[in-house]
């Protein structure tokens, strides 16, 4: 027998896209946290070993980066600023759509995607400039490419996410009262920015 329950009011829209994106960001945080945690652990172990060697032989240099490898700091710092810009642009898209400014929203989303592509370009440049030989750089090569490669993949996800939202925006999917997808897009870029900030400090500043 089916029990008849009272009819409910019409449910209000819930922010499932934003919540799911927040959950995905939590997953991404765990992913990058694990990558960087292992990076720092490997770095500490390597430096401890080098310090011991240095105590026995002062000519041994205590340095996690392989010899001859330098970090192109202009490129890595520019990447950070570019990602700050991408996050601001993504937020601008939300702001503009809430005010019904579709043209501004389109400009913001396109620029956001371009900033993402510029970040990928900077990452590729950084790889080329550093010239770390993955099979000849010891533990550094593994953890460096795993971390920076995962970051590049996160940027690709951000660019694709922005492109999808841009097309949905062009198609009239969003309105002044429905900006949830755009807010989710901004959340993705805040996450990418936060992930890179941690990566930038651990890998490029702390070295």
């Amino acid at each position: 027998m089916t029990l008849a329950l009272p009819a409910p009011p019409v449910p209000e829209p819930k922010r499932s896209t934003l919540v799911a994106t927040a959950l995905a960001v939590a997953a991404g945080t765990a992913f990058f946290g694990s990558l960087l945690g292992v990076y720092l652990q490997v770095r500490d172990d390597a430096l401890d070993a080098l310090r011991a060697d240095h105590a026995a032989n002062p000519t041994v240099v205590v340095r996690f980066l392989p010899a001859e490898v330098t970090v192109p700091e202009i490129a890595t710092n520019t990447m950070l600023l570019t990602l700050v810009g991408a996050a601001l642009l993504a937020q601008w898209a939300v702001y503009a759509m809430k005010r019904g400014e579709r043209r501004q929203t389109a400009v913001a989303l396109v620029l956001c995607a371009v900033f993402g592509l510029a970040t990928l370009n900077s990452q590729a440049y950084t790889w080329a400039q550093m010239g770390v030989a993955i099979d000849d750089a010891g533990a550094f090569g593994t953890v460096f490419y795993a971390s920076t490669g995962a970051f590049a993949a996160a940027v690709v996800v951000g660019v694709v996410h922005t492109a999808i939202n841009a097309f949905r925006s062009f198609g009239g999917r969003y309105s002044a009262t429905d900006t949830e997808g755009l807010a989710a897009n901004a959340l993705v870029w805040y996450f990418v920015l936060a992930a890179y900030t941690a990566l930038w400090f651990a890998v490029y500043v702390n070295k």
Partner: protein
Amino acid sequence: MTTIDTTSETVLAASDREEAAATLEGVAGWTSTVDHVRIGGLFAGSALLATLGVFVLGGIWGIERVDASDALLGGAAGQVGSLYWYGLAFAAVTPLLVGVAIAVVPLQLGVPAIAFPRAAALSYWGWLFGAVVMVGAYIADGGPGGGVDEAVDLFLAGLVVVTGALTLGAVCLAATVLTARAPGMGLLETPAFAFSSLVYASALVVLLPMVAAKAVQLYVDHRYGGPAFGGTLGIGPNLDWSFLQAANLVHAIPALGLLGEVVPVIAGRRQPMRPVLLVGLGLGAFAVIPAAFQGVFILDVPSGTAVFTILQRLAMYALTALLPILPFLVVLGAVGLCLKGARPRIVSAFVFALAAVLMTWVGALAGALTPIDDLPGGALAGTQFQAGQANYALLGALLAGLGGLAWWGPKLWGRHSADAPLVGFAGLALIGVVLVSLADVIAGFLDQPLNDPAFEVDGPHALLAVAYTAGQAVLFLAVAASALVFWRGARRGEPTGDDPWGGHTLEWAMPSPPGSRAAETAMVTTPEPLLDRAADGDR
């Protein structure tokens, strides 16, 4: 529509399309489905098949250990043992629990679809693809310790796909509970199993990406690198934490939720102190904290250690080894209150759930011993004791999955399964879990090294290996027989009513099997809406 497109309109549109898709027969209907009941069924069915395969491997692994050599399998012995563990954790237990939750939770919440139905479908197909790749990699001499480099890489890639897909399923599940509840249903009114599914999914969202991150590093290292992590032989030591203590206790959360769901119904009363039960379920999330250490935190306090350091280490021990015990105490206390003075009906789901909670609890208690470095018989970390702990936790959680199918099966497929045989099979499965796990625990006390078939230590190891093998055989029989009962029930069982158990929660107000729009008329204001309705009817 993309997989991230889930406004209420598009979810309903998905339901509309599902009605159209339901007209597709056979393979086409199942492969194109976005119906959460079917997706959950695919997960659970595939996981049960994988479970049977895992028990065959476990049996072979046990036979190999009888004479403390690798005479039967030779160089493949380590990989068979390894495939048993990765299969049990990522091809059997996790997908079974996720599948049951995907099928049941939207019904409990009174919503017509899971949030992001296409993403949920992608989660299943992605998991299946990744799992097949992993098994294929093992067959091609890959996996941890494998001899073919490309196959080892393939295993790691497959593991990344599996963990990514299961994470996606967990995101869908958590998003459903957080955003798609029936009107009036707050989180405190959420059914116990749905609440535990939220906690479990949230824990998986944290745990599985950590496993994926480690697999990515190992992949880069093995395929291109130095290697920094020990090459193919370093994969196991770097990755086995994903199914050993304490990551495995995460899977106890749905077992606790199932017990909290079933007990009030069979006791025929409301759950007393329900918020306490929910707090207990929420505490299950603490199990993910020790997993972040990616290994056992060893409690090592040599003489002369500073007091502050000792306190620090004791605090870490409490956090990683004692805290996971707490949710069991709270939930068992809460359901004990519910059972006090009641005369509960004994149904198979209750036996499965109780066995699951007891076994995972023993796993948590065993986990409290593992980190202690200064035990009288020597440290247990690195011995087969850890395998025993993992078997208690993972096999216990597996029983919860079977219990979920026994409880909600009649709802999902609209027909009765024979419950009396299932009670027997639940008891049989409990015996199997004890045989397998206890044999490993005792072997650990006898210093048998972890997951090493060729060991050289004294003791009745042959007897323990026989007990272990017998346990795997018993488990195979119990799971195969239970699956057969489910299958026969689904195909030929008597049509069931909407509420065969006298349930308290919303899913039992729907027709059996549920239609895609069946729950749209629900208004919920308490945790037991059907009990309220029945009480109103009596007045």
